[in-house]
Structures are given as C-alpha cells and as structure tokens.
C-alpha cells in the first residue's frame, strides 16, 4: 500500500516520510500537484493516502484535490492537506473540493497520526 506525499519542499517531504513510512506505507513523492497526478496514475489503485501541501508551483494543492475528486477512480483515496493555511474560508473551499482532513504546519508526529486515524486511514502496520 502506498502513501503519496506532495510538497515542493524536499525538507517537508522528508519529515512527512519519516512519520508515515514507519506506519507501513511505501512512500511516493511529488514536488507539485501535476507530478502528484502522474504518480497517482502510475500506482492506482494502490495509493491509500495522499498528503498534499497547498502552496506549490505549477499546480497547487487545491487544484490537485479538485482534479482527483473529479475522477471517479480516486474517490476512495484519503486526502489530508498539510498546510500553513488556516483561514476558515480557505479551509471550507478545500473541504468542499474533497479534502478529508487538515494538518496545520507546524505539527508533531502524534498530531499527524491522530488526524490520519480520524479519517479512517488504514495503516498497514497498525495492530
């Protein structure tokens, strides 16, 4: 089972990988939404979870979510937006587009894992 991490910051991708990989996921990485869509097409239907940043070049996180949720084959995949965006109006836009959960930067590993559990992410190595 795969988790896809989309963030233009390699440092942030590394941090997220260090938290999610021990849960039992194989990790895919992408530097923007467009690259993320390409990874999804390659690895569908084995991507269980996507963690996506909002503010990215080429295709931002909101555009990525709209593209994914507009495609029937990706409806079951969980999407968590990992972002500094905290404005209620912006969060509402993302939720309406199909985001399952928000994780605000800065976060701790415990917060991220709790959020993933809340949306029913099935961690391969979970007891």
């Amino acid at each position: 089972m795969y988790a896809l991490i989309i963030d233009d910051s390699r440092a942030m991708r590394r941090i997220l990988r260090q938290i999610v990989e021990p849960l039992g996921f194989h990790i895919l990485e992408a530097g923007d939404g467009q690259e993320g869509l390409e990874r999804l097409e390659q690895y569908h239907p084995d991507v269980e979870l996507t963690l996506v940043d909002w503010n990215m070049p080429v295709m931002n996180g909101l555009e990525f979510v709209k593209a994914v949720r507009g495609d029937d084959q990706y409806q079951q995949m969980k999407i968590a937006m990992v972002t500094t965006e905290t404005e209620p109006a912006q969060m509402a836009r993302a939720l309406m587009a199909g985001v399952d959960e928000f994780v605000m930067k800065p976060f701790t590993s415990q917060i991220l894992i709790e959020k993933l559990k809340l949306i029913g992410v099935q961690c391969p190595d979970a007891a």
Partner: protein
Amino acid sequence: MTIDEQTLQQVVSDVCTGMLGLELEPSEHFGCDESDSLSAVIRISGDWDSLVQVLTPRRTAVAIASNMFAMSEEELSEAEIRDAVGEIVNMVGGNLKGIVEGDSALSLPCVGECVGAAPFDSTFNGLMVSNRCQGDPLVVRVLDRTVHA
C-alpha cells in the same frame, strides 16, 4: 489581530522547537550584514501586505537542514540547505497570515545569499526577533507594508 514581538517569537518557537525539535534561545540582536548569510523571504499580500524574512548565517542554515533532512552536514547539497530555510519562512509566514484578520495570500518562499540586509535597508523598523538556534544566530523580521486608509 495584529502581530507583536511576543506573537512573532511564539510562532518562531512553535516552528523551530515544537515541530522541528531545534534548540532555540532568545538572544540579543546581531548584525544582519554578514557576508556568508542566507535570506529567505516570503510575501503576504492582500488585506495584510507584508514581507517575512528569516535571516541566518550559513552555519545555522546547515545545522537546520541537517536536522530536517536527518543527514550529516557534509552530505547536504546547497539546494537542501536553501530548501530547509525556505520551509522555515514558509511556516512562519503562513502562521502569521493566519493570525492577522483579513483575506491575504502567501507567496512561495525565495531563498538567496544575503546582500547587506536585503530585502530591507538599514532603515528597517519592523518587527524583529533574534534567537540562537542550535547555538547559532537566527533572525526573523516582519515588515508591514499595508497602506492604511
């Protein structure tokens, strides 16, 4: 809500210590004209128009990147060092944007060599907090450029 020095320090602490586990100690202000420094800047535009800058000697940037990438300092590339500092200013700027009321947007971070006090000149009179991060200097500055009617 507007940003004051205490709020700025709290945000910097949340990012550096709370998330990244870096050692952070408030310190005296130090000069920003070191020749071997990196400057990471992000712009907030809209109802609140401002620039947020993380200014740090290269040795601090390397220590931060080493922590974030879990790599030795010798293994790090220049791109990874800049990426790490860029992500710090991205998180600080994003959190500040969330605190100030109104509709504003965050740019992508821009990281480069520090030339003098770029992008602010010596007349800078915005908010500034100075810290020792992993023992080395780290300065965060906010310049509010909002034109108030």
